[in-house]
């Protein structure tokens, strides 16, 4: 088992190095530079420009810049933002909890409803209910989520007034960030109204972000369930006269869960991509928006560091899924 994990880790390292190169190359290939963006339509003094470029170390040859970046990174230093002068890591850590909270809630939403929809569709296979549920799932899967978000805001926030429009919490509540997760921070602050407000603010973004994973999970659950329901042991269980509910929920679902768990793991990447759009629509102060803003501001250290951190996250989750899979299924462990 241990060597298996080591083997997977050995693969991760070159991938990781590759990502540093990719992130560095991408951002430096983008035309324009941070000083120009800062100056905007104002006067550009050549001396001033030169001084700024020197101060930011942007006048050095690219390979040297990469080298500084890489060595800095190995010392745990991702550099500091050109715009705010704050260390990249500390900016990331301030914003990441917001994305994490949103992603977790969206994933819970997607998993709960996705599993339920999948199980219902599988047990009522071929009925109107099955077609309806699966049709809805496919529609969700086909949804341009930015449009979906806008429509939900208009209907539920503006016209019906059920949910707040944007942000993480009503700003009358001044909650000191302790964990950065608003739900937990409000509870730690013993402020139930604030907690309620935080929950209300999470509803729409979670739905929007969870829609596509929900559809994927529902479809996966349905097909996995159908496969399992055909197995001999289910037939045996039926023959033994166990209640159908028990058969479905205990015997079938448990065995159908494995591929579903994998799919959930794989959705993390999709989720982070979706977060970029969802955060833009709901003014959610997370890392998706942060990265997009930084690309347009040419904030090199933030883009490099941010992409690296996000990629690391995805790699780690994939690794975790891999390892879990290996734990569950020894055949995979010894392959390759």
């Amino acid at each position, binding site marked *: 088992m241990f060597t298996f994990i080591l083997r997977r880790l050995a693969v991760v390292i070159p991938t990781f190095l590759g990502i540093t190169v990719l992130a560095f190359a991408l951002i430096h290939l983008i035309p*324009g530079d941070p000083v120009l963006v800062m100056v*905007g339509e*104002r006067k550009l003094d050549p001396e*001033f420009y030169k001084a700024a470029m020197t101060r930011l170390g942007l006048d050095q040859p690219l390979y040297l810049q990469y080298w500084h970046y890489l060595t800095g990174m190995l010392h745990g230093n991702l550099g500091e933002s050109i715009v705010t*002068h704050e260390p990249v890591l500390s900016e990331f850590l301030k914003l990441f909890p917001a994305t994490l909270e949103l992603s977790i809630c969206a994933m819970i939403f997607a998993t709960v409803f996705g599993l339920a929809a999948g199980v219902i569709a599988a047990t009522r296979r071929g009925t109107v209910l099955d077609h309806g549920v699966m049709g809805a799932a496919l529609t969700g899967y086909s949804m341009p989520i930015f449009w979906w978000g806008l429509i939900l805001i208009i209907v539920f926030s503006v016209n019906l007034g059920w949910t707040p429009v944007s942000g993480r919490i009503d700003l009358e509540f001044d909650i000191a960030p302790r964990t950065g997760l608003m739900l937990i921070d409000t509870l730690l602050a013993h*402020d139930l109204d604030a907690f309620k407000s935080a929950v209300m603010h999470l509803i729409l973004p979670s739905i929007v972000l969870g829609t596509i994973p929900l559809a994927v999970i529902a479809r996966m659950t349905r097909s996995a369930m159908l496969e399992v329901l055909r197995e001999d042991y289910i037939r045996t269980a039926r023959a033994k006269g166990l209640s159908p509910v028990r058969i479905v929920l205990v015997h079938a679902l448990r065995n159908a869960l494995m591929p579903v768990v994998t799919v959930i793991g794989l959705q993390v990447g999709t989720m982070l991509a979706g977060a970029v759009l969802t955060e833009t629509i709901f003014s959610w102060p*997370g890392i998706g928006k942060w990265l997009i803003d930084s690309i347009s501001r040419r904030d090199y250290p933030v883009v490099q560091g941010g992409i690296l951190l996000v990629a690391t996250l995805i790699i780690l989750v994939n690794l975790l899924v891999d390892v879990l899979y290996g734990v569950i299924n020894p055949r995979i462990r010894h392959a390759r």
Partner: protein
Amino acid sequence: MRFAPRQLALALAITLAAGTAAAAGKTLIFCSEGSPAGFDPARYTTSTDFDASAETVFNRLSEFEPGSTKVRPGLAEKWSVSADGLTYTFNLRKGVKFHTTAYFKPTRDFNADDAVFTLQRLIDKNLPFNKAAPAEYSYATDMGLDTNIVAVSKLDPYTVQVKLKAVDAAFIQNLAMSFASVQSAEYAEQLLKAGKANMINVEPVGTGPFVFKSYQKDAAIRFEANPGYWRKDEVKLDKLIFAITPDASVRYQKLQKNECQVMAYPRPADLKAMQANPQLAVASQAGFNEGWIAYNVKHKPLDKLEVRQALDMAINKKAIIDAVYQGAGQLATNPMPPTQWSFNKTLKDAPLDVAKAKSLLAKAGVGNGFEITLWAMPVQRPYNPNAKLMAEMIQADWAKIGVKAKIVTYEWGEYIKRSKGGEHDAMTIGWTGDNGDPDNWLGVNLGCEAVGGNNYSQWCDKKFDDLVVKARSLSNQAERTKLYEQAQVVFKEQVPFTPIAHSTVYVPMRKEVTGYKISPFGLTSFYGVGLK
């Protein structure tokens, strides 16, 4: 987190108590358009940055009157200018206190040391503080302060003297601009000693109406009222919160739901509905800005006056104001807004005339039409809410006279760099006034010195330039006005650009908000603003 029921009840009771306490205070939430890059106004150039620091936390030696381009005394009670116009003496206000915050406790009142430090920092790269926290003070450079200020000295604890190299008629206005906000020398010293000089950009300390409390990127900035503010009647709120909301429709939706009470930059398309909403009030003021189409006079065939005149008269400005500005704009004729002193009222636009435009093109030898590029800004600016749409409409207008325009756009930084280099044929651009001086329009955007810089038309006209340069060196406003009026006539004859519109600034707010004044400079400030 496990709550025993009794703890829960206790928590609930505390919450309820806290709730009533909070309701007693007056909290105003402002839906702002973006996160500031930092809180040291000297480092930045955009209103998003200034609103969050200069307009709340800080004061300046001289200041603009709320809602006006007129200057009033700030931390300097009065000032005098020597006969040659080169030496300014400032008498400072006594008894003004810097904010007491969790990170800084002032031991003394504001005095000359603070004023000297503030100005020194902008002009002296070798100041120990600047070595510890290197930054570009680009706005000060832009206004020429770094080269024009020769010396700043303290005459006594409440008198400061500034010596200039050349006469600068707008010097006092320049000091009233956000970037010249007065910092505490004592705080800077403390930061320097602690090796945290950069924190001046993160945890600001000023003398202004609001005290900085906390900032969460992309979420909120919190301020509390400065109880001892020296302009007592200008603080009527207990708390001021910026809810950072980049999307304009979301800001509007929040305003409708009273999730905020004032919002920045409404979409022109929403204005009608806002004005009809009985719960909202929409303040408006002619903007101190102008959007225009610049013609690169160094490119053929735009070097021909007839061609520029033809393009100019083919543009249906009225339609653009209806669609792009949604009526929230004022037709522009001059290279400055009508509220700028020295605005020449006698100038008229050439009437929209397709036939005449065609004949002008024929006269210039391009009667069969030609192709040019038309650059569209990738961003929304105060003077142009939708450059892409404007470009599309002009494209359609020019097609009618046989000119085929190809719409080109680049990322913002690249757009500016390439257009300063003169790669474009025609482009959308504009300007928001900095300090209320005519030179800030004519000199900055059309002077020969500005070719390769903000003179996007690459237009250097001897007659025009002589007038503007001469006016800059005078201090008598009546004499200057005459010269600027003549310069505008030259502009109108030569058509280096087509003025399109001055966008009206709208600030939608809840009916309960009182005393809000729109800054002509596009800033958002809460001096004297209260809640009913």
